[in-house]
């Protein structure tokens, strides 16, 4: 589904990703862990198509095609969804109105009929019920004045409505209470299917208790330095990244070293 080869990215002239290799197949959930500032969000932003990230080397293939030449909205219409680490507040733009406009833009792209406001409301009610989200967030402006946790819930709500093919969750678990954490996990697990893939960026094992990943990747200093099964996350939680940096990688089995 997604294949990244030798990706080098600079931001504001500074090299952030330095030869990153990564791939994920349909039906899988992968976790990416790694120290602060290692480039995890940068990777997500490059996949989503944010400006200001200069790819100096390497390639990103999505469904076998060059992803990097597509506009962000085309990527979204092709099924890519990023739950942002810091969702943006958009004063004055109604949350529900915005989401319907987004869904209809995607449906139009796929040649499907657009949903009128009644049909959309029905869909929203269904999703809200499943996700146990309070519907007063719907009547407000996009993320405006939302608490940290409410913003994350709103991202998951958008994901549930848009039903992406490839979802990237950038620290969606940070700042969430225990119930909300379960809710995020539920949102992800419900979307899990043979034709979808999900990348979960996280610092904590907690989330991975609920979403058991098929693979865990460790990103440090712009590269994937280790990969393994779900148990790698446990090991990291135990030992910390400092251990990793101070030769821990060497102590990992050869099959874990990237």
């Amino acid at each position, binding site marked *: 589904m997604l294949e990244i080869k030798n990706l080098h990215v600079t931001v504001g002239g500074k090299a952030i990703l330095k030869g990153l290799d990564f791939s994920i197949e349909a039906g899988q959930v992968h976790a990416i862990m790694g120290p602060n500032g290692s480039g995890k969000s940068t990777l997500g932003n490059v996949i989503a198509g944010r400006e200001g990230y200069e790819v100096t080397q390497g390639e990103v293939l999505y469904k076998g095609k060059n992803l990097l030449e597509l506009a962000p909205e085309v990527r979204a219409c092709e099924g890519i969804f990023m739950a*942002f680490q810091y969702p943006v507040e958009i*004063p004055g*733009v109604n949350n529900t109105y915005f989401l319907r406009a987004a869904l209809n833009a995607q449906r139009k792209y796929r040649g499907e009929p657009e949903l009128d406001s009644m049909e959309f409301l029905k869909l929203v009610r269904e999703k809200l019920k499943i996700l146990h989200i309070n519907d007063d967030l719907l009547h407000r402006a996009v993320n405006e004045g939302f608490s940290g946790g409410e913003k994350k819930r709103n991202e998951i709500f958008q994901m549930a409505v848009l039903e992406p093919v490839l979802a990237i969750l950038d620290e969606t678990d940070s700042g969430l209470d225990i119930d909300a954490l379960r809710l995020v996990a539920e949102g992800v697990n419900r979307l899990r299917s043979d034709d979808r893939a999900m990348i979960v960026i996280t610092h904590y094992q907690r989330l991975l208790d609920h979403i058991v990943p098929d693979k865990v990747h460790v990103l440090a200093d712009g590269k994937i330095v280790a990969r393994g099964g779900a148990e790698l996350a446990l090991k990291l939680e135990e030992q910390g990244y400092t251990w990793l940096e101070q030769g821990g990688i060497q102590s990992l089995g050869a099959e874990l070293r990237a």
Partner: protein
Amino acid sequence: MSALAQQWGESLRSATPAQGPRWLDELRLRASDQLTAHGLPQRKDEDWKYTPMRVLEKLNPAIAYHPGSENHFLEKGQTTERGLNGKWFSDPIFPAALLDKPDYEIRVYDGVLVGHEGSDRPGVTVLSLTEGLQRYESLLRKHIESVDISGSAQAFTALNTATLNQGLVIHIDQQVDAGTMLLRWALSGKAGPSIHNFRVFLLLGEGTRLQLIEQFESADHSGSALNVVVHVELGSNAVLDHLRLQNESENTVLMSSTRIDQAQGSRYLYAGFDLGGGLVRHELKTVFGGSGAHATFLGAFVLDNARHVDNHISVDHASPGCSSEQFFRGVLGGRSRGVFNGKALIRPGADESSVRQSSANLLLSPLAQIDTKPELEIYADEVEARHGATVGQLDEAAIFYMRSRGLGEAEAKRLLVAAFCRAVTDRLENQALAGRISQLIDQAMPSFTQEN
């Protein structure tokens, strides 16, 4: 002096003088002399620094005279030669009305009253200027003589006074609710580019109410100029809700000057929307002549191409315990230019006054320009004053966020601009009207598909 001012001067000198009361004939001559001596506003006139006369000079309009037509102003329900059988002649020059079924509808076509329709409300009088001068001479005289016509900065009020013979007088007896009134202005440019002059009097007695909606919109876009002077008198506790929509073509010039005199406890609620025009200026000046009065000036302008819109608001807190607010939102694309100048003067003794002022602007293009200037002068005690002016661009992070959900870039920008303007439309009490104006704002937005 500019060639245009000279041309106007010659035209005024050779025109047949209008016949009216002696004081008015003399005033017309004085105004004519002023204009001839000083010419058009210049860059050195502080109040005109950012609003050059280029567009007007390029249009090069001749002064339009409408001698005599004044006398044909109609009784309610009647129509002119433009109309038929008591119904509005469906003249395509007037596009769709902003308000359905107003209590009164009055149309001014190329600077001439072409009739009115309205309900029979006792205490509401709608007259032409000629009729008004017969009925309310001393009252109108007081207003007409109060207009400053001196120097180049007052060229347009001088021109309006020099040619004064077309006008509308609305008089509301005390304690009467006059309902809604739609005043529609259209220009044709049929007889070549002309400048039409018109005068409006809104005389609201004690405890009265009126919702006035002015619509400046012509279906014909061949280019003309309109120069309007409006006198508003609000008796104590009177309320005037005054909405003005201007959606003219790029070769239209509109100059408006509105003076509001507010008695104790009165409320003046203005909302101005400029979505078009080539060169447009609104001067609004209110004076609080009694305590407890309030004035709100809301405004939004959405401009593309080379349009120029200037709003000059001035509030004179001459009495204590009054409040005023100015709230403007500007969106500028293309090579357009906006000017916002908001003055508030709190005179000595006007204690416990409250002044709020906010001007926020979005520049959508590197060539667009806004000059925004708040001027607060406070000489009284216990005054609450707040003001803020911002100039910014569309939030790139928000645009990316929306695009990442599938919205096209143009659509994302439209949503942001619409949201920005909603800060003004949300404050209109009439929801249906707010909805219509939002639609017009949507249509007025610069095209985002090409870089402009």
